[in-house]
């Protein structure tokens, strides 16, 4: 398909192979770095990013420049940049695509961030199923080093910075910044509650900037072309830049699309992702990864941008769009999400550790035809209690759950009325999960469901 929107992050997309350093340079790659090291001050780079209003692409949408400003100005000692490539949220695969399209864009972005925050070391945190990305980033970092773009005295200046890859052994909670820092430090990766922010006290107790990989890949463009250019890329009044939308589920052409921030959901799904497959009708969309709510089709004309989504009570998240059709049972889909969240919970705090197996159990009853009216209120209460958990994990899990009842309660009630799944799904088996029939030796903390009193 012809894509006529500006391609900034994916402009070097070649079928089945990453762009080489020469290809990257031919399109202006590393010009931003050359125009920065030794020529601009770190404060000037920070100012550009603040003016460009670059917001984090990892889900929370926090302005990147503001995060960088969190480093105490008078701090003397090592500073780190941690590049979050954990990306284990269901529906999200944009960072994998980005690394495999243009590794040097990513590397240049990391170096520019390091320059702005005066970091000497960068850690790319990569999940195990992205092993090929880890290898690619290592190889291309070596190439960058050979070209004098990374390592000691970058481009002959006194700025030195290097990148290494940290391989994770795979748990979703490692995507949370403080948990990621613990994971790199060889500690059990539970999120840290309260206390100083990671920009003050992070890796090895030093100031650490944890940014999503896509966020940093925007830096070369911002530095080279300026904040106004970056803002002009967006289609919405409050947005800036483009965004990688990973589209999956029931669409004709699932994939990763780079489009201006603010592109309406309808256009993303029906124009770029090819619309619904024949015979399918759109029922619901999860707009930004598994921790965002199910949206009914009445929201399809919403601009995909942080602010308009927020105003409509929705969440932009990672902009990883999952499309559900009329034949998919949303109780079953929510149950699947709760299975995921239950298994991936770090188990540290009660609302999450206890709340998730509880709602999962009730959803299993409803999907299996044994649901009762009072279960609806019980689930809603539990979901609300999950909002007061230790980190954003359990509140994130509550989003699709609560939206199921907000927009699709009729479908839940149909399960109660028919005493079975109206879509014909078999009663859910507790297969392959952390509890039930699965041997407890694998995966996360065994769940004591066998003795569950519910």
């Amino acid at each position, binding site marked *: 398909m012809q894509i006529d929107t500006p391609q900034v992050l994916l402009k070097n997309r070649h079928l089945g192979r990453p762009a080489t350093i020469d290809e990257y340079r031919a399109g202006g790659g590393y010009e931003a770095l050359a125009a920065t090291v030794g020529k601009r001050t770190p404060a000037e780079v920070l100012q550009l990013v603040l003016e460009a209003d670059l917001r984090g692409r990892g889900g929370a949408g926090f302005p990147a420049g503001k995060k960088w400003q969190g480093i105490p100005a008078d701090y003397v000692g090592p500073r780190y940049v941690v590049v979050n490539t954990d990306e284990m949220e269901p529906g999200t695969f944009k960072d994998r695509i980005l690394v495999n399209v243009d590794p040097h864009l990513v590397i240049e972005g990391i170096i520019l961030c390091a320059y702005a925050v005066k970091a000497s070391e960068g850690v790319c945190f990569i999940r195990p199923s992205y092993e090929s990305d880890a290898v690619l980033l290592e190889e291309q970092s070596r190439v960058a080093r050979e070209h004098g773009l990374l390592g000691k005295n970058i481009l002959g200046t006194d700025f030195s910075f290097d990148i290494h890859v940290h391989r994770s*052994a*795979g748990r979703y909670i490692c995507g949370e910044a403080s948990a990621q820092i613990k994971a790199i430090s*060889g500690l059990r990766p539970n999120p840290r509650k309260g206390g100083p922010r990671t920009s003050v006290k992070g890796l090895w107790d030093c100031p650490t900037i944890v940014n999503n990989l896509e966020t940093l890949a925007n830096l070369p463009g911002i530095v080279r072309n300026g904040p106004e250019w970056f803002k002009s890329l967006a289609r919405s009044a409050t947005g800036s830049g483009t965004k990688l939308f990973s589209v*999956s589920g029931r669409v004709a052409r*699932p994939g990763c699309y780079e489009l201006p921030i603010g592109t309406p959901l309808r256009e993303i799904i029906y124009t770029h992702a090819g619309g619904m497959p024949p015979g399918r009708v759109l029922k619901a969309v999860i707009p930004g990864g598994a921790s965002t709510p199910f949206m009914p089709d009445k929201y399809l004309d919403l601009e995909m941008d942080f602010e308009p989504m927020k105003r409509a009570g929705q969440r932009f998240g990672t902009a990883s769009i*999952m499309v559900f059709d009329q034949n998919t049972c949303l109780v079953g889909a929510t149950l*699947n999400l709760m299975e*995921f969240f239950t298994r991936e919970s770090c188990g540290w705090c009660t609302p999450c550790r206890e709340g998730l197996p509880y709602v999962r159990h009730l959803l299993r009853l409803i999907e299996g035809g044994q649901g009762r009216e009072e279960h609806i209120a019980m689930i809603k209460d539990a979901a609300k209690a999950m909002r007061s958990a230790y980190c954003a994990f359990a509140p994130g899990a509550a989003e699709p759950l609560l939206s199921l009842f907000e927009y699709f309660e009729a479908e839940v009630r149909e399960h109660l009325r028919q005493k079975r799944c109206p879509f014909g799904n078999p009663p859910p088996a507790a297969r392959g999960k952390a509890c039930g029939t699965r041997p407890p030796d694998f*995966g996360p903390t065994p769940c004591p469901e066998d003795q569950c009193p519910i």
Partner: protein
Amino acid sequence: MPLPDDLVAQIQHRIDTAGHPREAAVDVMYALQRHYGYLCDEAMHYASRVLGMTTLELESLATFYDYLYRRPVGRYVIHVCDSVVCWMFHQDSIFDYLCRTLGVPPGGTTEDGLFTVLPAACIGNCHNAPTMLVNGRFYDRLTPERIDAALAELRQSTEEPVRCK
């Protein structure tokens, strides 16, 4: 059995090049897992000694992470994605088909020691759903036929399996 010299050297090199030895904990466990096939007690004790961490600290990692195994696994570990996108395509059938074909329960290993089937959180290949990951390699748009073909190919393979590094 003492560990081969090159493995000892490789592990030591990883620890020496890490700013802090603890940062190498997962890498060291991966290296030992590749050698032993899983993290046996001997591996855990060795890792604890070279990393200067207690076995309890390492245990809290080995039992927490999905890609570290404290029990023997097959030559090929099949991580079947069961996140919501893959679910909406395979519902129960792909996972169950795999377990049925191999004659193992979820989490089980085939008698010939070749395959272990594990459910996995999203593996980041949602646009090619339903998918699975076998020793780090993606298998896309699964159907029973494609699963049969993949298993046959793996059975024939004489290649050293690429475990997650």
